[in-house]
């Protein structure tokens, strides 16, 4: 009786073979996600707390990708099941939840967290349990590799911070023919100082010079005095690594003082708040590096944007796009894995060649970083007017 009822359930769920097998095994949930009739993947994201918007956007993208994979028949006839947990934007919580996902829920790969600090906290757990963790948006330079070498079970599908600085220096030299730059950097964040260092190194290597470097700290609102000082210098471009809250004000105050040189930034500019703070007039001749552009005419991107808008009623941002690619990337690695274990999935991830997503096509390098291009977005009157893939 018990047997037939289970078998019946399996058939109606359209995974007849796997379902019957699972019924025969009658394995307790846990130990290994691949034993059941579904493939379990962990989703460990910041759904509440300080950076909840990043986590929520990533998860929306992941879910859309996994739904597409499942609708297309899953992987070898097995549906993917997502086990979703909220780490409350807290590194300790992220570690605890990673342990639970891997040892109790039996996932064979984990996605997230979104920020570098929280993601790094889950890596030791991944190494212990031999289950790979992948982040779509942890961009700090030392996430997957440090002085001790590459972290075997940690991957990411986004470029790292210093690469953005390097590409922007290339863009300034080649596209804007800039010979002299000034830097205004957020000294209170590693992200911004890392970008500034990479920009300076590449820009000087190309024969450019840095006329002046000014610093500020997060939360400042008055930049008139440093901008007045910079106005006395001669330069072609301003490099402004930092987040939108201060960048918006700096751009506005610079334009008010009559500084009309191009202003270059990084993915920290990618927020509607930038436009609110700076206003439309000042947001001309502003360029920033990003993971993806919503005005990209690549058919894959156009399809993604229209499908996302239909499902969620809003235009996808970079986190949505990265989450979507992350879901597809993990599903792709699972489908290529020799068996459904964390170790086999890890090997498949490391061997990735020519994966195509909406944020670009990439190979996985020996440091578990993707080799992919960067989009440089140009703003005109506050809206994205140009986008160019570089690298």
């Amino acid at each position: 009786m018990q047997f037939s009822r289970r078998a019946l359930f399996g058939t109606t769920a359209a995974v007849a073979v796997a379902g019957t097998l699972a019924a025969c095994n009658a394995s307790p949930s846990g130990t290994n996600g691949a034993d059941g009739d579904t493939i379990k993947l962990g989703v460990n994201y910041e759904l509440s707390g300080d950076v909840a918007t990043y986590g929520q956007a990533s998860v929306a993208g992941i879910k859309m990708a996994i739904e597409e994979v499942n609708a297309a028949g899953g992987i070898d006839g097995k549906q993917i099941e997502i086990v979703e947990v909220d780490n409350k934007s807290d590194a300790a919580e992220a570690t605890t939840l990673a342990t639970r996902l891997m040892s109790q829920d039996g996932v064979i790969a984990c996605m997230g967290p979104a920020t570098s600090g929280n993601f790094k906290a889950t890596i030791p757990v991944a190494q212990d349990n031999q289950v790979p963790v992948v982040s779509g948006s942890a961009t700090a330079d030392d996430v997957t590799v440090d002085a001790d070498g590459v972290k075997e079970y940690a991957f990411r599908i986004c470029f790292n911070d210093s690469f953005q600085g390097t590409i922007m220096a290339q863009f300034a030299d080649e596209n804007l023919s800039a010979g002299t730059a000034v830097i205004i950097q957020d000294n209170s964040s590693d992200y911004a100082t890392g970008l500034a260092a990479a920009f300076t190194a590449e820009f000087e290597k190309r024969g450019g010079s840095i006329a002046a470097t000014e610093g500020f700290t997060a939360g400042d609102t008055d930049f008139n005095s440093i901008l007045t000082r910079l106005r006395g210098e001669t330069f072609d471009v301003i490099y402004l690594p930092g987040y939108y809250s201060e960048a918006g004000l700096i751009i506005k105050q610079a334009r008010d003082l009559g500084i009309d040189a191009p202003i270059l930034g990084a993915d920290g500019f990618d927020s509607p708040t930038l436009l609110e703070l700076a206003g439309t007039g000042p947001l001309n001749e502003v360029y920033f590096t990003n993971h993806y552009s919503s005005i990209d005419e690549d058919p894959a991107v156009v399809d993604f944007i229209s499908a996302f808008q239909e499902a969620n009623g809003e235009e996808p941002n970079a986190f949505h796009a990265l989450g979507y690619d992350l879901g597809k990337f993990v599903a792709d690695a699972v489908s290529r894995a020799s068996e459904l274990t964390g170790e086999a999935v890890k090997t498949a991830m490391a061997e990735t060649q020519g994966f195509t997503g909406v944020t670009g096509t990439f190979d996985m390098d020996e440091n578990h970083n993707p080799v992919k291009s960067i989009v440089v977005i140009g703003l005109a009157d506050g809206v994205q007017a140009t986008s160019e893939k570089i690298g």
Partner: protein
Amino acid sequence: MTEFLQQAINALSLGSIYALIALGYTMVYGIIKLINFAHGEIYMIGAFVGYWTMSVFHLGVFEAILAAMIVCTVLGVLIERVAYRPLRRSTRLASLITAIGMSLLLQYTMMYFVGADPRAYPALPDYMNASFSLGGVVVKSQQLVIIGISVLLMILLQFVVKTTKMGKAMRAVSQDPEAAQLMGISVDRTISFTFAIGSALAGAAGVLVGIYYNSINPLMGIMPGLKAFVAAVFGGIGIIPGALIGAFVIGGAETAVSALGYSLFRDGVVFAILIAILIVKPTGLLGKNVREKV
């Protein structure tokens, strides 16, 4: 020279804002010897009231300033009535801790309602966004409005304190509250009035800052509040002209530090000034002049 004049304009705008906040600090200290740490938060709430009057009720800039001044007046009096008056006879430390508690309460209550993200001020009419170039020196009409309104309010304050009956009562209470009471002055009313005026000025400063920097958030009151406090101490806490001088000195020092290329030391220099003045002349620049105290 152009650069120097431009920096002077920057310093004047910054100094005017500090002055409006510092006056509230110094008046309250002058009258009840309390450093009202919640003062920076009244300024923050003034900025939000201005934001709402302009974005929700679509009122003009000057109406927004007026609305912020009215709401902050009520709030300031209420805080004094609820938090400080019951403690007036206890130690000064108790009131000081209450003031810090009040400051945190206001910050995080606002954060609960409006969130921590910075907000942009509503679009301003064209005459507020205009700017003139005088031989390379860019002067924005916003800066003129800030300096103008600050000067106007300070003249008004001087008039109230020096010539009205209430001003006389304020000066009397600050010198000796008990003697003032014996002379038939209502000490409670006078203190409430002092909080009202100080809070109104802070509310106006909040809206002016919102207009000028175009970014407000629930924690925006902390730094300007502390710097205005330094300005008040610099000039001699409790002395109105001292607060003015202090505010322009602090605004000037900050601008000068950035202008020389040490922008990261900007805040550090302000607090170094505080330490230096407390060591060298704890009563402040005009500290001797007790008769002027309010």
